[in-house]
């Protein structure tokens, strides 16, 4: 029982980067941009957040300002969105303004972002005495579990009902709740707002949207930049929570590609992305909690991809319109071709 509760708690920590990456990519793809640079954007967001937190903490040290962890967290979040958004801007300029191939641009962005992350991780790290780019105590507090703050410092034992409740629903850092709220906001945005409907129109049929007076280029720019910013937050989570604010080389380790697989699994719906990310997160750590004797670990590592293939098979058999990739996705819009 304890093991099961711990497993669920670990899923609650493991799914966040996949969900944030998938949400960013869904927003981007809804505008008709197939951005394969998620991995690179995660690196960019990650390095942006840690460098911002590092310098923010140094600037605040000894100043006596209250609520330092909060300021550092906000700084770090904005930096992750900004640097991730910068990646999205590069992508948009290439594809919307210069009509570059979307797939090639996305793959280039992956290589570019990985390089940027590792370069600045090394560069800032070697400016410090120990050689590590690492945040200090104050910044670490910003990404610790909120449970001690909520329960007033006392945590219940895990074998009581209250203890299980706390562990399952409260023993997480703020970014877990942030990612879930963001998913809900995105559902509302796509289905209940005028802007969301227009954005979907741009992604499905840019020519029709253009004829209806929608500024296709503007929508694609904004959706891609904001989507990339959200993807950047996914990188921030891996760096600040999983690596505890120490830059490790190649820390994203392919999660960007998994996030793209979550987009396929979720069939472009933010709410299904929550379940998709939880399934992927759960499958990726299942062998740590429930190992099956004799099953090689490579089989476990394969599971998320098998799940994706099965979902793709099922959706292509059922052919439901609402489960389809946006029609204009991957194609650049040439007004002259209309």
């Amino acid at each position: 029982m304890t093991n099961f509760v711990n497993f669920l708690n670990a899923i609650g920590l493991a799914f966040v980067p996949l969900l944030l990456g998938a949400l960013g990519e869904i927003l981007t793809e809804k505008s008709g941009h197939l951005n394969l640079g998620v991995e690179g954007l995660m690196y960019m967001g990650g390095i942006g957040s840690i460098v911002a937190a590092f310098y923010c903490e140094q600037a605040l040290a000894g100043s006596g300002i209250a609520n330092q962890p909060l300021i550092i967290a906000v700084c770090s979040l904005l930096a992750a969105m900004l640097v991730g958004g910068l990646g999205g801007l590069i992508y948009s300029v290439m594809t919307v303004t210069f009509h570059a191939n979307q797939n090639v641009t996305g793959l280039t962005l992956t290589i570019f972002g990985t390089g940027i992350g590792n370069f600045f991780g090394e560069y800032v790290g070697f400016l410090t005495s120990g050689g590590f780019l690492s945040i200090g105590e104050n910044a670490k507090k910003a990404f610790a579990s909120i449970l001690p703050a909520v329960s007033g410092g006392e945590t219940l034992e895990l074998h009581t009902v209250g203890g299980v409740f706390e562990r399952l629903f409260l023993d997480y850092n703020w970014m877990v709740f942030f990612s879930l709220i963001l998913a809900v906001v995105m559902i509302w945005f796509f289905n209940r707002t005028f802007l969301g409907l227009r954005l979907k129109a741009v992604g499905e049929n840019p020519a029709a949207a253009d004829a209806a007076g929608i500024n296709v280029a503007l929508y694609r720019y904004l959706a891609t930049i904001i989507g990339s910013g959200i993807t950047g937050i996914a990188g921030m989570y891996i760096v600040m929570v999983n690596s505890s604010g120490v830059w490790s080389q190649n820390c994203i380790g392919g999660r960007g590609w998994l996030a793209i697989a979550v987009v396929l699994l979720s069939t472009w719906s933010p709410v299904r992305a929550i379940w998709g990310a939880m399934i992927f997160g759960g499958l990726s750590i299942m062998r740590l909690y429930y190992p099956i004797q004799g099953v090689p670990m490579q089989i476990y590592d394969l599971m998320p991809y098998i799940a994706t293939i099965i979902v793709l098979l099922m959706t292509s058999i059922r052919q439901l319109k609402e489960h389809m990739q946006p029609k204009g996705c991957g194609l650049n819009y040439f007004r002259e071709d209309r």
Partner: protein
Amino acid sequence: MKKQLTVQILLVVCLILAISACLACTAPQPATGSAAVPVEEATSAAEEPTAVEEGADDFNAFEAHGRANRRPDITKDNVKIGFIHYSDISDMGFTYSNYQGTLEMMKVLGLREDQVITKFNVPEDSASATTIKELIEEGCDLVFACGSVAFGDNMLECAREYPNIEFYHTTGWLAPIERLPNFHNSFAKAYQARYLAGIAAGLKTKTNKLGYVGAFPYAEVISGFSAFYLGAKSVNPDVTMDVIYTNSWGDAMLEDQAATALIQSGCDVLSQHSSSTAVATAAEKNGVWHIGYNVDLTDVAPNAFLLSACVDWSKDQIHAVSYMIENKDIETDWSGSYMDGACYLTPLNTAVAADGTQEAIDAAVAKLESGWDVFTGPLKDSQGNIIVEDGVTFHEPTSCPTWEHILEGVTVVGE
């Protein structure tokens, strides 16, 4: 519809291929799983005593092999050395410590900067052979490949092609098999440092359960954690250890998750054979302790970090380069011990370590100095079979570790 059906069939075929490829990949791994154990145990139990008797003389066998590949034209002032690394120094782990070793070697031997060419981030496939050839064209007389088992095969091909150039692969295992005059391997007896680090873990643990995050089920990793466990057991007979493999040399997120799972199962001192800092920070976050590998992590986890077992890579480089300058034969397979300084411990974090840790480590060092070694019997494996008998010591026959037994008291999660 027809096109769709074709796509679906293709996908299913891909799936089957992927699964079968995966199974094929896992098959040749070290046989620690259940299926292959009986056969392996039977042979190893019979063979090891002979390996113990003859192991120490294995180097003499290489001596007998003609290695006349001397280059009298090479002096301290004109020798040129190339290095290939699979990563770069920002990993703050393996490649970083190798590069520090190179700097130390240059300082000790008094080499100029233009006598050393270093190539980072060399792909671990046939492109590494191309990089080695580039180094040779730039005039290198001696080429080092640092780490990465995959460099070995490509380097071996180059060694056959360029008999006048010396090749040196650290942590490789092909040289004692191939016995070319110009191809060499080396690796420190890192397990000795692991054993000493294990003592600190055995004294610190309160739950008597250690956790170990390993990279792959590979002899270097298994040898490392077995020695670590024996060190802990030497001061704490009740201690047990859980091992989780991450299946990657460095994956911060997975290492963090594996470390957290170990802590939740009751482990209170963690160690690792992987290159990220995530295991140390996971220990720090959860209020348990950590023992590192290859790098001092006091800055990263000041309240958790005890000490690190490290390898000093300058020693084998100094050996190879100085022998080359002095026109002597470089050893085919060189291995330095703790007493040679080839492996060492970082200073103990006394603010965290248990009382008497330093004394216990010093006592074990004295034992090592007297000729005792880590894998001394009686040792049983996790199935209860005797693998090293009482009073017998298992000596590694080559510099590259070959120890693949899971000891009694060690549990590999999932096996």
